[in-house]
């Protein structure tokens, strides 16, 4: 079953912050985040393993709440280059090697 992402779409002005959520109905081993710009392939952002860790990359960070079976992606002081569709990929079983992706969140940053 696909994880549920929210919101489905969001429009922000440059410099504003965004939060994208990913919720699962099943226990998670890890959560992966990808960004796909229009007309391009999805590109890996970060992996979070169970344990409630938080990771950061430049002004993009993420948290993983194992108990709540959810992850959130935080985009701080958004830039035009952040526009795209964000997908979370969930790993339910360790060693399975496959991910189940959510339906995506389309983020549009306007000047």
């Amino acid at each position, binding site marked *: 079953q696909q994880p549920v992402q929210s919101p489905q779409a969001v429009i922000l002005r440059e410099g504003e912050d965004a939060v994208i959520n990913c919720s699962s109905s099943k226990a998670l081993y*890890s959560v*992966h985040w990808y960004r796909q710009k229009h007309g391009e*392939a*999805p*590109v890996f952002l970060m992996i979070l*393993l169970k344990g409630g860790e938080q990771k950061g990359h430049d002004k993009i960070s993420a948290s993983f709440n194992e108990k709540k079976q959810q992850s959130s992606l935080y985009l701080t002081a958004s830039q035009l280059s952040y526009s795209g569709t964000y*997908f979370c990929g969930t790993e339910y079983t360790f060693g*399975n090697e*496959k991910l*189940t992706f959510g339906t995506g969140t389309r983020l549009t940053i306007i000047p």
Partner: protein
Amino acid sequence: DVKVTQSSRYLVKRTGEKVFLECVQDMDHENMFWYRQDPGLGLRLIYFSYDVKMKEKGDIPEGYSVSREKKERFSLILESASTNQTSMYLCASSPIAGVGADTQYFGPGTRLTVL
């Protein structure tokens, strides 16, 4: 840099035709995946392979088959294309990390239209 290439960016076929989508990766990755991407539905896994000649069904395997005769090449086959298979098809590969699923590297995609 990891490179995943797909044989065509755009493909138009007729209902009932047999369709082959090819994917090649150059990083000696063990795992390869085929997804389809549809608006509002995200990325859905069709099949994946973790070794040559090995394959496992994903979430939506009906109407598709796959072939992996060489480590670097993974083919998706539509035995008899139907209009509901019109979609964007994405191939991906990943290494075996040993600590769970590793980063997937995606190809540019093939937009298939079935008339």
